[in-house]
């Protein structure tokens, strides 16, 4: 099957998911990002790559942090950024998603950064652009439903590579609400492609989706067992807004069973790093002593996230139709 993210030359045309993303392209993104990290330390925190390009941030679902990091990344590439809070505008007046896209394309958009509560919305937009011969317009998935959040997955890979250098000898544990987490999915696919030999998913039965074993993931409902000797711990936020029905007894009980405390962290390797995509719920999934401790790399993730998004956008904008 043709990978809808790649053009006919195998180059990155859209970034929709880390699933099936070739290892060479993941490495190209991570390598390019490392060159962008230093741009943020300079007197002029900008490069002229995307001068004259228009990036539209289409957030059909709210996310201040992700939208802001995409906006900073685009601005550091010298692009013009237009933020559309779709939830409060045309969609609420009944305009269809693809009509919105056609209107914005008519305003000469070069790139859409799309966040949507429905899985597959960015793919639908990418396919529509292809069907209407608008291959010069690129789509970046900034999170769709429970499906994928590829730039978060890639910035997690960048962070792991930064601290651990090599993927092929790592044990990585992803902890918490895997069921609702597009971050977990994007991480699992990218970690697998990069050759991580052991990926673990830790959480209560009700938050572990079926099919993890088929992806090569070991599942644990006991956190102490799951954390034993891991190199990397990726904590997930408890997604209250996606939680319908009684999947969990209470936040306090969750913390007792799956909260990352200093005592539990001690079960992992002594040099293990602790990651979290944010926003954190202190005292629900992570203890403050861990979140602020020496093994936490959570704020580095934020900094690297900008460089990774700059890499993704500049590679896409340079890809010819």
């Amino acid at each position, binding site marked *: 099957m043709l990978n809808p993210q790649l053009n006919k030359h195998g180059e990155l045309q859209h970034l929709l998911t880390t699933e099936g993303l070739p290892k060479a392209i993941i490495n190209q993104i991570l390598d390019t990002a490392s060159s962008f990290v230093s741009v943020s330390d300079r007197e002029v925190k*900008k490069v002229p790559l995307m001068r004259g390009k228009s990036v539209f941030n289409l957030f059909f679902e709210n996310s201040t942090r992700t939208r802001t990091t995409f906006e900073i990344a685009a601005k550091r590439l010298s692009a013009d950024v237009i933020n559309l809070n779709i939830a409060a505008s045309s969609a609420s007046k009944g305009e269809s998603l693809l009509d919105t896209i056609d209107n914005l394309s008519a305003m000469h958009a070069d790139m859409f950064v799309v966040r949507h509560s429905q899985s597959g919305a960015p793919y639908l937009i990418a396919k529509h652009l292809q069907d209407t011969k608008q291959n010069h317009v690129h789509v970046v998935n900034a999170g769709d439903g429970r499906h994928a959040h590829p730039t978060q997955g890639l910035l997690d890979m960048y962070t792991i590579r930064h601290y651990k250098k090599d993927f092929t000898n790592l044990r990585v544990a992803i902890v918490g609400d895997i069921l609702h987490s597009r971050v977990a999915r994007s991480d699992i696919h990218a970690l697998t492609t990069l050759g991580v030999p052991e990926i673990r998913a830790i959480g209560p039965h009700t938050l572990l989706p079926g099919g993890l074993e088929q992806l090569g993931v070991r599942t644990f409902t006991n956190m102490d067992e799951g954390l034993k000797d891991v190199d990397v711990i990726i904590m997930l936020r408890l997604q209250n807004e996606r939680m319908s029905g009684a999947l969990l007894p209470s936040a306090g009980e969750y913390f007792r069973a799956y909260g990352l405390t200093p005592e539990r962290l001690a079960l992992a390797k002594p040099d293990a790093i602790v990651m979290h995509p944010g926003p954190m719920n202190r005292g629900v999934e992570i203890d403050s002593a861990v979140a602020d401790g020496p093994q936490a790399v959570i704020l580095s993730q934020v900094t690297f996230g900008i460089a990774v998004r700059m890499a993704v956008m*500049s590679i896409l904008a*340079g890809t010819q139709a």
Partner: protein
Amino acid sequence: MSHTDPQQLDAEALYASLLEQVKAGIAGANEPAIVGIHSGGAWIAERLAKDLNLTARLGVLDVSFYRDDYAKKGLPAEVKPTHIGFDVNGATIVLVDDVLYTGRTTRAAINELFDYGRPARIMLASLVDRGERQLPVAADFVAAHTRCAAGQALRLQQTGDGKFSLTLEQNHA
């Protein structure tokens, strides 16, 4: 100006000549520094910095983010980090490239340097000038002039012991 046959370029002899020129050129200069353009220029800059006792004021540039053919060609698959570890403000910078040709790389490099600060002066050093400029760019220090066919590329190589050689290659692009 006499032109050397591109097959006859002795990179080691050219380096020695370039070193003497740069040494004389920056004598008495304020806050001298050496910045090489990836990859050939960076090798030369590294040797110049060592020979001129300026290793603490050595930088490398990858001009990929400043190139004028991005819209046509996109980003190259391998971009190397730029590293400027000294204060560019007020510095006298010797910008080093292996082969000076259209001048477009020099333009990109100057733009990038200015995003680090305002140098007092930028001078351009190049092992070989192959002419055919497309921009008003001139080198301050050049070890040899040559001419090559449009489809050819002069490529600097460095052996394990740090010695340079120049080879003439056919461009497949």
